[in-house]
């Protein structure tokens, strides 16, 4: 059962006590999120069941297709800014033709997965936390537990599978759109031809950059789903609680995306 009994802690008046409570609360939260991840991975054995397939497709549409517009806008401007900033510096050495390489490497290694992760955390993660939080306060999760329908299999597993698939795909899409945005700036502002820009961009692009970026995006998809669902399930105190859970989910997702992004870069590039 995912439903938890309400928890009560006595008020602590000393700062050490309050610090200790924050530490215990954070450890417990991480532990529970870890258990939720393990339960969801176990529930993946049901992912090919017909009704699970429908739920996964629905979630792919919600998390993937519905995010494409905002991702496109952010990606194209990210590419344009990258091209402009690096291009201005490169122009000082008359090397603006290399702007394609700078944009390609930045997008594949960092900006593609990072921007995708942040956008999905804000759009999809907040929506997951709010939806599950609302289900908790309106007793829908308890109803599932009483009907012996496992909320992890029914609600979390389809979201996790959808995000595991869609985040890397969207990250790739972000990279390509960003490169396109960079190309627009290269042609119109830096006076580099499209052929030169593209040739330069793909000349130094390594498969490793692509795959490490996609791996990062995959991890970001897992983080967004588990953190958001965990915060949603932990909701208490009605509508106010739903707002707090949503806020916590987005902030935690941003933090974990930054930390995990750094750790993966450190592991693969140093």
């Amino acid at each position, binding site marked *: *059962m995912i*439903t938890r*009994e*309400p928890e*009560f802690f006595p008020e602590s008046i000393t700062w050490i006590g309050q610090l200790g409570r924050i530490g215990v609360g954070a450890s417990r939260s991480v532990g529970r999120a870890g258990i939720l991840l393990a339960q969801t991975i176990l529930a993946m054995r049901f992912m090919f069941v017909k*009704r699970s397939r429908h739920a996964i497709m629905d979630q792919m549409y919600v998390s993937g297709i519905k995010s494409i517009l905002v991702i496109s806008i952010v990606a194209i401007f990210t590419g344009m800014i990258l091209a402009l900033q690096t291009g201005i510096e490169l122009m000082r050495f008359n090397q603006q033709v290399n702007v394609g390489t700078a944009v390609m490497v930045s997008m594949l290694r960092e900006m593609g997965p990072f921007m995708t992760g942040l956008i999905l955390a804000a759009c999809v993660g907040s929506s997951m936390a709010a939806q599950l939080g*609302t*289900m908790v306060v*309106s*007793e*829908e999760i*308890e*109803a599932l*537990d*009483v*009907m*012996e*329908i496992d909320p992890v299999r*029914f609600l979390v597993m389809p979201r996790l599978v959808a995000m595991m698939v869609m985040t890397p795909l969207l990250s790739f899409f972000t990279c390509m759109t960003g490169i396109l945005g960079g190309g627009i700036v290269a042609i119109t502002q830096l006076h580099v031809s499209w052929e030169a820009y593209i040739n330069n961009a793909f000349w130094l692009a390594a498969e490793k950059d692509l795959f490490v970026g996609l791996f990062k995006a995959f991890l970001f998809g897992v983080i967004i789903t588990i953190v958001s669902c965990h915060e949603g399930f932990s909701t208490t105190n009605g509508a106010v609680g739903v707002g707090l859970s949503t806020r916590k989910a987005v902030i935690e997702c941003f933090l974990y995306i930054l930390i995990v992004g750094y750790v993966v870069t450190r592991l693969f590039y140093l």
Partner: protein
Amino acid sequence: MIDFNNVTKVLGNNTVLDGMDLHIEEGETFVLVGPSGTGKSVTLKHIVSLMTPDSGSVKVMGEDISQCSKKRKEEVLSNFGYLFQGGALLAWMSVADNVALPLIEKTNMKRKDIYEKVYNALELVGLEDDGDKMPSSISGGMKKRAGLARAIIRDPQIVLYDEPTSGLDPVMARTIDHLIVDLNEKKPGMTSLVVTHDLHSALSIADRIGLLYLGKVIVDLPPDEFIKSEDPEVVKFLEAQYITKRGSWEKERK
């Protein structure tokens, strides 16, 4: 069928259940009444293992529900129907899909048979024309009736009703009372536990009424005796609902 033995439950600084004893027989309709915040819903949650007692035991069909294995707990829970206060319908599914959900998830019935059964249940609660509607577009009373249809769709042996008539107009409240009585008459072995503070409803449908006060069931009597009780809490509760016609309450059940 359901046994609470000396159950204590503390939430924060509040002792909600304080050595509570309760015994409900198979086929009986037991109504638990009491003021708000006395632990009526907490009592229901102990029965379906959404909460565990701090001390004492809750036995359902002979099993200590908080101690038994996960598999056995699932077997026991498969005999339950639970009507939540707000209906607890899943917002993204139509009324019919909500009612069908336990059958889709927990049985191997064909889709056609499932929806035939679903529309029979919806007809029973007067919602046969509302199956395609979404929960957001129906009233609170209709949500409760849809929740009731979902609670009984698997022909449970035990049905728990959490405030089935609260927030409803008097006509709809009596309709729900009729439904509860009809269900029990159609299925004689069915055990019902109704939690409410609507004494009109309690006196109409109950075989026995228990008054929960300060964490204990302080009165446990048939309706005819309950209404005559001189216990000050019962008297206060009856008078607060303008029930003064002692001893001649007309029951739903003839």
